């Protein structure tokens, strides 16, 4: 059984077809990477899955329940968390507060209980604080714990966003260009974390990424897109050697320039 199943999904912006009759599925436990040139519709797919955009046609299933029509705020509770291509953090809050906010769907107390800060709320607050600390440890954010986001460098912000997404223990993590704008060293940290999230935390990861080194290092499978439609899919080797993919990336070509070592 696939964790996520996308059936003939189509989405248009006026005349632009951002996603075109696209079908694919994400298997439990794998790292699946979407590649494709800018404007291929990768981010749109993420926005469709997290229900920030409405599909014109087609359906999305998560764990065999249809989520195509669900309101966006139900998605995280089902176990799908995400990051954004251009980081969408809570700018005026600290790193810790951002991660704690990420725990929102884990709460079992109501606003009324919060008003009185009952014993249960206190207990839960401690639990979430502990969980956040584990995440801070995992992502090596200790020294930024109490820093306000607005003053942080871009590389740290990218990591905080992943940390915030992971906070709610998602089954499926959507990462939109996690290493865009990061240094080589920071990118290799991200590769380690993705590996750990997959192997130790048992998360399934759907990722958009341009950094081919990283893609080859962590992906189990790759899907190549062009103009919203599927170009090729399969193992990293298969996809990168696929003539259509090479053509899409390099205009026309023989594939010899695509010097990838597997």
């Amino acid at each position: 059984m696939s964790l996520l199943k996308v059936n003939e999904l189509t989405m248009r912006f006026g005349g632009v077809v951002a996603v075109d009759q696209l079908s694919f599925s994400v298997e439990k436990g794998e790292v699946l990477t979407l590649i494709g040139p800018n404007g291929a519709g990768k981010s749109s797919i993420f926005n469709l899955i997290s229900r920030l955009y409405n599909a014109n046609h087609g359906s999305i299933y998560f764990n065999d329940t249809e989520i195509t029509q669900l309101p966006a705020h139900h998605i995280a509770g089902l176990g799908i968390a995400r990051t954004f291509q251009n980081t969408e953090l809570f700018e005026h809050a600290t790193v810790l507060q951002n991660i704690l906010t990420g725990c929102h769907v884990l709460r079992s107390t109501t606003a009324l209980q919060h008003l009185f800060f009952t014993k249960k709320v206190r207990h839960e607050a401690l639990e979430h604080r502990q969980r956040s600390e584990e995440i801070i440890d995992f992502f090596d954010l200790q020294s930024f714990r109490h820093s306000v986001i607005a003053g942080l460098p871009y590389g740290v912000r990218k990591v905080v966003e992943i940390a915030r997404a992971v906070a709610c223990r998602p089954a499926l993590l959507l990462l939109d260009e996690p290493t865009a704008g990061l240094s080589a060293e920071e990118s290799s940290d991200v590769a380690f974390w993705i590996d750990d999230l997959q192997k130790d935390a048992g998360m399934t990861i759907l990722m958009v990424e341009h950094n081919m080194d990283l893609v080859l290092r962590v992906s189990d499978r790759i899907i190549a897109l062009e103009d919203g439609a599927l170009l090729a899919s399969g193992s990293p080797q298969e996809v990168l050697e696929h003539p259509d993919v090479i053509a899409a990336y390099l205009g026309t070509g023989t594939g010899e320039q695509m010097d990838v070592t597997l």
Partner: protein
Amino acid sequence: MRHHFRTSYSQEIRSYEDGRQLMWYLLLLLVAIVAPFLLDEYLLGEATQILIWALAGMGLMVLAGHTGQVSLGHGAFLACGAYMQNFLVSLSIPFLFALPLSGLFAGIVGVCFAVPALRLSGVYLSIATLALGAIAEDIIIMLEPWTGGVEGVYLDSAVFLGIDFDRYADGLSPLASAGHNFYWLCLMVVLLVTIGYINLLRSATGRAITAIRDSEISARAIGIDVAKYKTLSFALSCFVTGIAGALLAHFLGAFNYEAFTILISIQLLMMITIGGIGYIHGAFVGAILIVLLPLWITIIREHVSGFLELGNASIPGLDQAVIAVLLILFILIEPMGVYGRWLKVRGWWRLFPLARKKMFRRHRTYLKTERLR
């Protein structure tokens, strides 16, 4: 240089930073409790007014400061509370029971307004609330049977279980200035609301509403029901503002629509902006500034006109003008308000002598894109 050294998570979720801070707040509370013994009747009246405006300020702060939904018409909810209080008291419901009911009424009106209005965001929501604030006066005049129309209403005196809570009543203690019963009542209400507010902010609900303020898109992706929390914030905000209105009704004793003009709404927003938007403290600092401003202006004028021999002719609108100038200065120089400035000064001292100027420079907010690509 001072540093917080924490050894357990419960130190992080409590509502004060450390024992020292708690001590200061308890001292402040103590001073507030004994104030009737220290202040004369006039100043106690000013103190009572500060409490009432701080309460209204906290009401608006939840919505504008913490949820990011700026309301320019909160005077309307103040009016809801005040007139409902008058109505309930006239039905001979004990005024202490009427107080939360009036707040509840304002909260319900707030929700009725919020549900359609929350489809709007940013400046459009502000315009809708501005319209609400502007028509509030006319609605008050139209509802003459309940509001006394243009003439206004006179409240019955506030007696509960034989204790007179009237603003001018002698009260329980012969040593304290008159009106201290009402002052203590206001203090009690403010204390309860402040504690509830602090609790809210340190729990998931508080984080949810500030998340909505900072990035609605992220909030949704994290699983926060934006519409629900905005409505909740509106309800709480109007509830608290309504209670402030009810207390104001007792404070004024007699009032008409003029007490709730659009200027009051705008003044309320200016108050929390100057005080420090986004901080509970900001509501208190703002209330102190706004309530005592006329007093300060009078004092300054006495000195200045003694100097320049201007006489004592009053200048209409001077208070408003001064507030407006203050607001402009604050927005230009210190958008975080008096309290925000205080935090910086305190931060500087705490790090002394390690603080550097650029640590406190205004944070750059990265451009938000409409598109999620």
